[in-house]
């Protein structure tokens, strides 16, 4: 797999993870907490 393919699949998988998190309010909230805490 070349780098372009890898980048493409990365985006795809990231979208899949986003969908998994968004479908679960608790995971969404934990994700928000982690974003906030580690962005400080």
């Amino acid at each position, binding site marked *: 797999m070349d780098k372009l393919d890898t980048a493409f699949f990365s985006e795809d*998988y990231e979208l899949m993870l*986003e969908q998994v998190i968004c479908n679960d309010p608790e995971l969404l909230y*934990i994700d928000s907490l982690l*974003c906030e805490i580690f962005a400080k």
Partner: protein
Amino acid sequence: MNVQKLSDQMLLQNYLQGDRSAISTLIDKHSRRVRDYIRMMVKDNDVADDIFQDTFIKVVHTIDEGRYSDNGKFLSWVLRIAHNKVIDYFRAQKQAPSVSESSSGYDILGSLRFAESTVEDKIIADQIDADIKALVDLLPDEQREVVLLRYFSGLSFKEIAEQTGVSINTALGRMRYALINLRKMIKEKDVVLC
């Protein structure tokens, strides 16, 4: 056929086949829910409108570039993008020194930690920070590493995969398990998050 009753999947398909109006229909179909979600998060209608617009710009670009893989959960995907835009907004607010305390304070899902409007709220928010960081420390090494690289270092999953020497799929899987494990520990240890 009543266009309002077309499924998201069909509207996407029509759009990809050249029906430019289909994307407008799709956006209209979900606009109220997405806008309400953003407004609930930022508590400012003007800011919410900007984020709403940015959200759908990203949605359309992603679809146009062929990077959206439809699995029948279009709205969830859009809400997630909106959520990320909201987080970006708050991050930018925190980095802007001229922003007043009242406009930078916010409240996500009713949690006190994001409002920090009083000394007591600040103490609670600091406690939540400490609790979450302690739980992250308890994650298996490979999951903790992905969490820190993602949220602290801000790396993409492609970069995380390269840095840790695993596939992108594995890195994403570790992140998913990390979040699930954190939820499990929060419940087991009765950690109060609001």
